[in-house]
């Protein structure tokens, strides 16, 4: 196996008695977009700042391109950062901002100018070259920050909440722009974000962090569909989770779910034993809603308690006889007027789901 671009080995960071990052080990490949996803205070920004060199690990080592970064100061690292606040120099023009990193590199003035022009073209800001940061919009500022960080052709670009300061429309647009720029430049991106949707669409791989610990690493699909813990399942999208107990193993695993008042069949996975307590979890979009009784193993009967209509889809909250609430996400595939809806308030409905969709979580 070739050496990964970034190798983080057992890195911990403490501030006084507070441990911000606990024994994190990660490997990030060249050309990847890798996301560190987690809520505020989960240690993702601290980890990023350690990569940039603004914080030194209390324990563990960080290798970039095979070089131990312990003794390398921030200004010598082949790493650039795009700050959440963008941190543009207010007294310099857009052009000067983008060219600032090149000032510290041995190259001719002509090359420097050409490189700045090239970067401004990349982010489509050529007409704004002589403006000051306060004379351009938030989205443009974000692109200046990106161009500035990319100008020195870093091996690794660190992006701290790159889209957080943008409004929703601009965010979607910028997200695709970021991806295309990453593809064109081939620079490895590490993105810190608290927005799971952003992480899912943007990245090749995600590390979900909680309280300084990496809970799960994987492709977005894998982390979403096969979360290894209740925390990860909850953090990425929404989920119906109930306490359950394994009653039988075999081709399918049977679990008894007291909250649903019945047993549920799940696809067989290893490492479980009869009598073990687990969490039975089910994504709302994996459940089908019916207005007539149906036959089958995984069927629940209940009444619609709440209904939220979003246009392209609807969220139902179905109350079971046991009192438990199940969220169901249904796409409004057919056009229907109000009285033709799939189900309405207080309607009696039946819910069905595949055994393969059922998650059994031990953590």
């Amino acid at each position, binding site marked *: 196996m070739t050496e990964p671009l970034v190798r983080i080995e057992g890195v911990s960071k403490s501030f006084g008695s507070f441990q911000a990052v606990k024994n994190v080990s990660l490997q990030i490949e060249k050309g990847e977009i890798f996301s560190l996803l987690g809520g505020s205070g989960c240690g993702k920004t601290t980890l990023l700042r350690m990569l940039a060199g*603004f914080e030194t690990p209390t324990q563990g080592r960080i290798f970039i391109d095979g070089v131990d970064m312990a003794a390398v100061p921030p*200004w010598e690292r082949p790493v650039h950062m795009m700050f959440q606040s963008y941190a543009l*120099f*207010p007294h310099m023009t857009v052009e000067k901002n983008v060219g600032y990193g090149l*000032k510290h*590199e041995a190259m001719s003035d002509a090359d420097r100018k050409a490189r700045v022009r090239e970067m401004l073209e990349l982010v489509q800001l050529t007409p704004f070259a002589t*403006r000051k940061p306060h004379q351009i919009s938030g989205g443009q500022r974000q692109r200046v920050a990106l161009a500035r960080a990319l100008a020195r052709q870093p091996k690794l670009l660190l992006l701290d909440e790159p889209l957080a300061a943008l409004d929703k429309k601009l965010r979607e647009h910028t997200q695709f722009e970021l991806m295309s720029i990453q593809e064109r430049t081939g620079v490895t991106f590490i993105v810190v974000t608290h927005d799971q949707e952003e992480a899912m669409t943007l990245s090749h791989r995600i590390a979900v962090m909680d309280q300084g610990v990496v809970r799960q690493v994987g492709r977005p699909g894998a982390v979403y569909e096969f979360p290894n813990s209740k925390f990860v399942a909850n953090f990425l999208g929404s989920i119906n989770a109930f306490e359950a107990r394994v009653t039988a193993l075999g081709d399918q695993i049977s679990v008894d779910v007291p909250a649903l008042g019945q047993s549920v069949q799940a696809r067989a996975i290893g490492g479980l034993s009869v009598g073990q307590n687990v969490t039975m979890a089910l994504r709302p979009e994996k459940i089908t809603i019916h207005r007539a009784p149906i036959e089958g193993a995984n069927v629940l009967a209940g009444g619609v308690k709440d209904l939220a209509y979003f246009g392209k889809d609807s969220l139902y909250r179905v109350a079971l006889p046991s009192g438990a609430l199940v969220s169901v996400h249904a796409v409004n595939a057919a056009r229907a007027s109000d009285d033709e809806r799939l189900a309405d308030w207080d309607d009696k409905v039946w819910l069905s789901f595949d055994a393969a969709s059922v998650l059994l979580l031990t953590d």
Partner: protein
Amino acid sequence: MIARWFHRRGWSDLVIGLPYVWLLIFFLLPFLIVVGMSFATRTSTAPPFGFGGENPLVNLAGYARLFSDTLYIRAFVTSLTNAAGAMVLCLLIGYPMALGLTRVDRGWRNILLMLVILPFWTSFLLRVYAWMGLMGSNSWFNKVLTGAWNWLVPQAWDVANVPLMHSNFAVVLVMVYTYLPFMILPLYANLERLDPTLDEAAMDLGARPFAVFRDVTLPQSIPGIIAGGMLVFIPAAGELVIPTLVGDSSAPMIGRVISDEFSSARDWPMAAAVAVALLILMVGPMMIYSRFEARAQARERSE
């Protein structure tokens, strides 16, 4: 009717107007009197100046003497060089202190800020006298300096004591000591507002700590440098007490000249003319600067 006016906008007009009235009565009016006096003629009556009668209504003799008598020109030059020296030294000493204040944690910062302001709690005059005691030729301080000097240089250059007192050096030294907080405080206020992530961004882009300071911190602190510089330069240029107590009486500063003209020479018109000239010398550059600033800002906004 008055009540209605008062409630609608009168109260805010009054609040805003009061300081202007104050400035008008206690600043502009006396200044106009001084300007008027500078055109008068010296008489032996009381008050010791007069207009008209056998004297010309507008007498420019005072202003003419400003240029003809080298005493005034020398006094202006001494004042400006001493004040400029004090300003530059205050900047060189105060800038690192202000920058240091922004880099220590909260608790220490308050203590250190306190220490910067602390000297103000004792009488200004007392502090100048303390310096006189230190610099005098029989002080332990002077003896240590003399000893060090005599030990370092060849015997031919030996001195009985280091002549500190009654020199421009002493004036600048005491002015630096006195006005240092006026440099530190506006600089600190300016530096404290700067975004520390900008330093990190520069460092991240390959700038070593000195380059970070030169490219990011320093350019952004220019308003603080100008504010602090003016707060030191302006009072230092007109300083009376310090040069009188520790300065070289054969090369007086302009404050001393004005004071002497008023009191011992009883030439009020001349004193007024010197005062007006000093004011023009101070306010002129400031007005040019602020006009330049305003135009630069307007240009930036219109772009």
